[in-house]
Structure formats: structure tokens, C-alpha cells
């Protein structure tokens, strides 16, 4: 692996994570959202795995991809419950105005999707890379 690529990959990894978070929260009112953000973040980890090795990327992720997927799914699921309690309707979201900030349980749902996408994509990508390395 070229030294330029492996050095820059660390920088790009951080950049991609930041952009993915920006995409995630931008999706609240504008194009973007958990799915796109999750894909970008997953690409960041994939880049790390490509430049160094899968073990490095797994260490950077800290948890197992499937566990991340489960946690995200759980978060998305829980975000639908408040609506169930108040309106008897799952995924009817709660909204709160804090100053000019317009927040709701939909954001929690999006964060859940973000984690599910990272986990799901990385689960496959890591497996494929490891398979090729063998």
C-alpha cells in the first residue's frame, strides 16, 4: 500500500465521519439523512480497512457491526413508541420547538437508521475484505 494513501486515509476517515454527521443532521430539513450519512460513514471505515487492514477498521469501530446494527434498529424502534403512547399510532412523531430549533423523535429515528446502515454495510464489507485477504 502506498504511503500517501495510508497516511491520507486517516485524514479522510475523520473527514468522512464529520461529513456523515453533517449529512445526518442536514437530513432533518434538507436532502440528506440517516441513510446517506450512514453510507458515507461506512465508506470511511471501508477506506480504513482498505488502507491498513480489516482489524484496524474493526478496532476503530469498537463494537461489532451487527451489534451496531441492532442498537440502531432498537433506537429507531424506540423513537416510534412515544407516538404510540400519546396517539395510539406507531411512528407518529413528537415535535418540540426550542427557540428556532425544531426537534422531534424523527431525529432519533434517523440516528437509528444511520447506525443500522453503518452496521449493515460494514458487516458485508469487512467479511468481503477478509475473504479476499485469505
Amino acid at each position: 500500500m502506498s504511503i500517501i494513501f495510508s497516511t491520507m486515509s486517516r485524514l479522510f476517515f475523520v473527514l468522512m465521519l464529520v461529513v456523515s454527521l453533517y449529512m445526518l443532521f442536514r437530513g432533518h430539513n434538507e436532502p440528506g439523512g440517516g441513510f446517506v450519512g450512514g453510507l458515507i460513514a461506512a465508506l470511511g471505515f471501508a477506506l480504513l480497512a482498505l488502507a491498513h487492514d480489516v482489524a484496524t477498521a474493526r478496532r476503530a469501530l469498537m463494537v461489532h457491526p451487527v451489534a451496531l446494527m441492532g442498537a440502531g434498529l432498537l433506537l429507531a424502534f424506540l423513537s416510534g413508541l412515544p407516538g404510540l403512547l400519546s396517539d395510539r399510532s406507531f411512528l407518529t412523531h413528537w415535535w418540540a420547538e426550542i427557540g428556532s430549533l425544531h426537534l422531534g423523535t424523527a431525529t432519533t429515528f434517523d440516528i437509528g437508521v444511520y447506525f443500522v446502515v453503518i452496521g449493515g454495510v460494514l458487516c458485508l464489507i469487512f467479511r468481503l475484505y477478509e475473504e479476499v485477504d485469505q
Partner: protein
Amino acid sequence: MSLVYAFAIAAQMGCGVYLLLSRHVVRILLGVVLLSAATNLLIFVAGGLVFTAPPVIAQGTQMLGGEAANPLPQALILTAIVIGFALVAFAAALVLKAYRAMGSVFTSEQTDAEALGTPFDAEVARNG
């Protein structure tokens, strides 16, 4: 205009089915990809082809303007693309794994499922 799309769908579909009938598992996979792309195009055409404004609700209003495009086919295609992406990625991993395990990409040589519990004796002897 629809006719052009119809021919495009037909061509894609034809290529997809042709690849699907191949013995090479990677070609089969590509066939599935082509078929699902053709399906997305089909939904796109069936949803009505019109050149209009994007379906975005303008600031300060509650409803879509009358001239906006129908957002539903777009949502359907988007969903289908996402699901197709996941399935193709999964299938690709499966194909790679199968190639590693069986040492062949040809379906004619991937016969382990048939050999398992076969009623014919010769193969029983071979597989113990």
C-alpha cells in the same frame, strides 16, 4: 417517448434473462442486477412520464403545488434500489463464499446440495 423507454426496458430485461440462464454464477448475479434495474425503469415509466417541478413543498405552504411531479414512483424506486442494493451485496458475498468453498464458479460443478442425501447409491458411497 414511452416507446423508447419500453425498448430500453425490453433490451435490459432480455440481457438480464440471458445472463440469468448462464452457468457462471457471477453472470447470474449480473443478470439479477440488470433485471432489477429494468424493473426500476418500468416503475418509472408506469408512474407517468412528465417534465414537471420536483415534488418539494415550498416554504410556508402545507401542500404540494399542482404542477409538481408525483413523488410516489420516486419513493418506490428509491425503496427498490435500497433493497436491491442490500440483496445484491448479500448475494455477492454468498457467491464469493461459495466459490471459495467449492472451488468453481460454474453451477454445473456446484452440486453439493444435490449430493446431500441423494437417493442414488453411487453418490452415497462417495459422500459417506
